[in-house]
């Protein structure tokens, strides 16, 4: 759990406006050409003055994807042009770091454009801390989504004009499984699914999966079925058990659809079901062949087995007609 002081300190900054950050240079053709070259953007409205004159823009415009580029500090960190604010719009992250939330990952970048930016315009932006989420547990770790909005303007003698906005969201977190930076590899290894921890109590289940059997633990004293596997019967406290093979016919008891953050190698959206077997016990498993808009509590399902990464066989459930 997060320290309540952390959230109240962080939330106290929400709504705060941070001063202007100016562009070093006016919007200019050389930077546009360099950007278009490397991106493979060949639209002449950015680089060919004669073509641009004949368009609705009546002259060269800057690529919309460059909106943030104009106000970047460049080689030297925090080296912003004279007149720029020396406030730090990311100060909220420092509060989180002081509480041990050291990792940062950018999750959303949402550009909206009020109008195209034209050659020769001089831009600046101001920043507002838009929101700090409650503490969230994700596959990456536990932490906070922090959203900033940068409003971009073009300087005009007649009054500065808004040209567009950037909503930028980062996740500031403690990693779920903090590891020393992994061994260095020459090429990116394709990530594999994490393997379950297998104990003497659970080994039968995973070995059953490898044989295409969905095995459920049964108390041999009172015949009560139980899942997840455990050493003792919850009804009669007997330590004696065997297994029965479930039919694989089941109903959807509840479900969740994982959207974000996307963690390799899983596919997203990733639907996960709490599944009630016809034998009466419930288990959690992935859903396949489902349209998430169509998922219905009570929907009939049938088990099937899929092998991942050549090393792990999991029961998955697919909708079937009732």
């Amino acid at each position: 759990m997060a320290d309540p002081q952390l959230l109240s300190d962080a939330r106290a900054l929400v709504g705060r406006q941070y001063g202007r950050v100016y562009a070093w240079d006016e919007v200019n053709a050389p930077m546009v050409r360099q950007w278009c070259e490397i991106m493979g953007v060949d639209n002449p409205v950015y680089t060919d003055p004669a073509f641009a004159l004949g368009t609705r823009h009546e002259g060269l415009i800057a690529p919309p994807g460059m909106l943030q580029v104009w106000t970047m500090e460049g080689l030297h960190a925090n080296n912003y042009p004279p007149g720029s604010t020396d406030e730090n719009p990311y100060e909220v992250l420092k509060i989180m770091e002081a509480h041990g939330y050291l990792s940062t990952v950018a999750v959303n970048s949402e550009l909206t454009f009020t109008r195209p930016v034209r050659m020769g315009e001089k831009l600046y932006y101001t920043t507002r801390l838009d929101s700090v989420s409650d503490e969230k547990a994700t596959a990456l770790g536990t932490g906070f989504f922090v959203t900033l909005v940068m409003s971009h303007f073009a300087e005009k003698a007649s009054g500065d004009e808004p040209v567009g906005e950037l909503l930028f969201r980062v996740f500031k977190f403690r990693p779920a499984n903090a590891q020393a930076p992994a061994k260095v590899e020459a090429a990116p290894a394709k990530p594999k699914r994490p393997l379950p921890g297998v104990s003497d109590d659970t080994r039968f289940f995973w070995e059953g999966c490898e044989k295409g059997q969905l095995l459920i633990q049964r108390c041999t004293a009172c015949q009560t079925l139980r899942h997840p596997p455990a050493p003792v019967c919850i009804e009669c406290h007997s330590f004696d058990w065997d297994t029965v093979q479930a039919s694989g016919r089941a109903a959807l008891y509840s479900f969740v659809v994982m959207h974000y953050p996307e963690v390799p190698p899983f596919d997203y959206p990733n639907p996960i079901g709490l599944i009630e077997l016809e034998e009466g016990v419930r288990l959690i498993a992935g859903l396949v062949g489902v349209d998430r808009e169509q998922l219905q509590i009570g929907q009939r399902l049938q088990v099937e087995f899929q092998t991942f990464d050549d090393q792990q066989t999991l029961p998955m459930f697919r909708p079937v007609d009732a």
Partner: protein
Amino acid sequence: MTSKNTKRFEDVRPGEALPELAVPVTVTLINGGAIATRDYFPGHHDADAARALGSPHVFMNILTTNGLVQRFVEQWAGPEAVFRSLKIKLGAPNYPGDCMTFSGSVTQLDADTRTVEITLGGKNSMGNHVTGTVAVVLP
């Protein structure tokens, strides 16, 4: 290549798929993209610095991803499509030696403003590097 002709709003069908675009991810693209967007964060141009951060190699910066998303949509829409928004979620990193393939389709049409929304994804060998929506106004 961007078509010389801009699509007209009336020519776009709901659900229409955009032509796929495969972008080989190279050291040159990652380095050049970072510098063209004035992003000198070492992880985007210095392989040793990237490894010290726990990455296998340099990785693509967000502003390059934005540029490639723009290109994917613009090559389909044509030179006079006016961008209204470019909204992305970030996923698996882009490392050299990989290939990112964009796919997308038309998910909304607003006749009053002649705005077309495209929902897209750019997938590499690890999964989606980027997913998002782009809105453009067509003549």
